[in-house]
């Protein structure tokens, strides 16, 4: 039981990180990014190329891939998303769906459709902590998630860019009038969102496999986590991810792995029926929609 909760917690961290990227982009730019998972998949493949083709050490590849993720996010924003800033929600959503399909198809052409394995960050045998076993790699996931969540909190709380991001998410026009360069803020948002997704991808790959469809399940669960959190709260996204991870793992252990998805969405429907604005958002928060 404890073991299942712990491994659910590890998956939950990955979902939470991906959800964090989704929520970050949504609350600043008002756009739900369906291409989040596919952008993360590309980042993971780039890391793998650095690892296997250029034979760089793991952590160098990791950092280079993160740099790539940031540039990729900025590129997607500048080339595509910027032009639909004022379009309807549906058009924005379908544009990200289009990016999803194009990136998915393009990545398949470049890297092929055969899944391969991805090396772990840390090797070594499991450590026993009381009744549970935890591998160094799983510990790495927990630590990375914690550090990123703290870094994001610090970014929002203590930096000028973080302040601008908070201002832009509250009122775009007022932010512009206060002299905030909204375009730059959005670029930073897309870069950080893409980095968060990319790290989620890099953490997922060793547990599952490296392939063009690897992030699909993570994306779905990240959506679930983000909805549970109300799509606006950053700490909520991480907590939502952890809840979804543990809940899904319990369902797949005690019932069937395939039913985890179904039960997760039943959970979400029930939560949304009781609180249509999500667990962690105040009712006023949906006024923008």
């Amino acid at each position, binding site marked *: 039981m404890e073991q299942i909760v712990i491994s659910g917690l590890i998956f939950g961290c990955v979902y939470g990180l991906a959800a964090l990227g989704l929520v970050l982009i949504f609350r600043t730019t008002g756009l739900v990014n369906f291409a989040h998972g596919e952008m993360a998949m590309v980042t993971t493949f780039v890391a793998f190329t650095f690892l296997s083709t250029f034979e760089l050490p793991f952590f160098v590849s990791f950092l280079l891939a993160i740099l790539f993720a940031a540039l990729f996010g900025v590129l997607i924003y500048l080339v595509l998303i910027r032009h639909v800033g004022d379009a309807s929600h549906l058009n924005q959503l379908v*544009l990200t769906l289009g990016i999803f399909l194009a990136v998915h*198809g393009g990545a*398949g*052409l470049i890297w092929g459709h055969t899944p391969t394995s991805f090396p772990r960050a840390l090797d070594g045998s499991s450590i026993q902590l009381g009744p549970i076993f935890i591998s160094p790699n799983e510990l790495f996931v927990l630590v990375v998630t914690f550090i990123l969540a703290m870094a994001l909190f610090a970014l929002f709380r203590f930096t000028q860019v973080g302040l601008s991001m908070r201002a832009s998410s509250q009122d775009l026009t007022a932010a512009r009038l206060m002299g905030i360069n909204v375009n730059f803020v959005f670029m930073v948002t897309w870069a950080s969102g893409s980095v968060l997704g990319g790290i989620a991808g890099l953490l997922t790959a060793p547990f599952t496999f490296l392939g063009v469809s690897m992030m699909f399940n993570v994306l779905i669960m990240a*959506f679930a986590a983000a*909805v549970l959190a109300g799509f606006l709260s950053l700490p909520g996204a991480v907590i939502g991810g952890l809840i979804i991870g543990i809940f899904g793992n319990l369902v797949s252990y005690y019932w069937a792995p*395939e039913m985890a998805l179904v039960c997760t969405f039943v959970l979400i*429907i029930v939560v949304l029926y009781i609180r249509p604005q999500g667990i962690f958002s105040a009712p006023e928060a949906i006024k923008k929609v």
Partner: protein
Amino acid sequence: MKDRIMNRRTLVVIFAAFLLAYPFLVGQSSYFMSLIAMTAIYAIAAMSLNLLTGYGGQISVGQGGFLMLGTYTAAVLSAKLDMPIWITIPAAGVVAGLVSLVIGLPAVRLKGHFLAVATLGFGLSIPEIALNWKSVTAGYSGLPMMRPEAVSSDLAFFYVILVVTMVITWILLNIANSRLGRAFLAIRDSEIAAAATGINVAGYKTIMFMIAAFFTGIGGGLYAYWIEYVSPNDFTIMTSFFLLAMIVVGGLASIWGAIVGAILFTIIPHFADSYVGVTNLIIGVAVILIILFRPSGLISIGELFGRNLKTKELESAPVKPDQKQSSEVTDAKF
């Protein structure tokens, strides 16, 4: 104005005549007939989705789930209970409609992205349930189907699909032009204003979901009989994405736009399927280009030639969505 309507009517008649003659133009090749039959089935689903999303403004990312509900309802009733086609096809629609009521109850309270994710979950869950409810759906192995005696040939059933699609198109065009369609547009433009004018927003949203699910379910039922075999892989979440892309590429709030989208998205894989994944790439790029450069959809290109296909459809509508959207385009450009 009369010229335009005449023009449109002529176009529709020519199009219908072409479809009726089609099997003989391609020498009754079952591959080419299947191409049009699948287009018709996707057109039914896309038109229904357009009523929900284009007219009503309710985003559904899980419409493929209703197609699958329709196929399995028809397959289970026919294979296990031996019911005739004139019961199974309507039953496919009714079951999809009833399930949409369950989904619609919370969905009526949700908006925008919350609704998108809730329906996404539905679209993902239905294939999983079909896979795991082995006593009814036979899991991976799927269910075989038999067409009824009278329409057992491909040619005969091709005409069944064609006729049903045309009837559904006619019904949906009329719904879009009726009191219901105008209420849907009002809800899309502003729920508060709609409620203030005496429109029962929750009631109409539920009706919207049920109509869309009902016709999509019928489309699913037709699919089961056309392929004569159903499996959990028939309609994945990708189907739902494609359906949404169809209506946006074809044209939102336009029944004809949905048909254009369905035709386009069935023909692209026909040319691109030789490489795995190229279909996704091409469709993705097409969607991106349309959203960036032609946000009112391909149907709006007709306006460039002064042949406004949408004119009659939207004459009585309170707000013309193509105008509203084109103003959004100019906004986005600046």
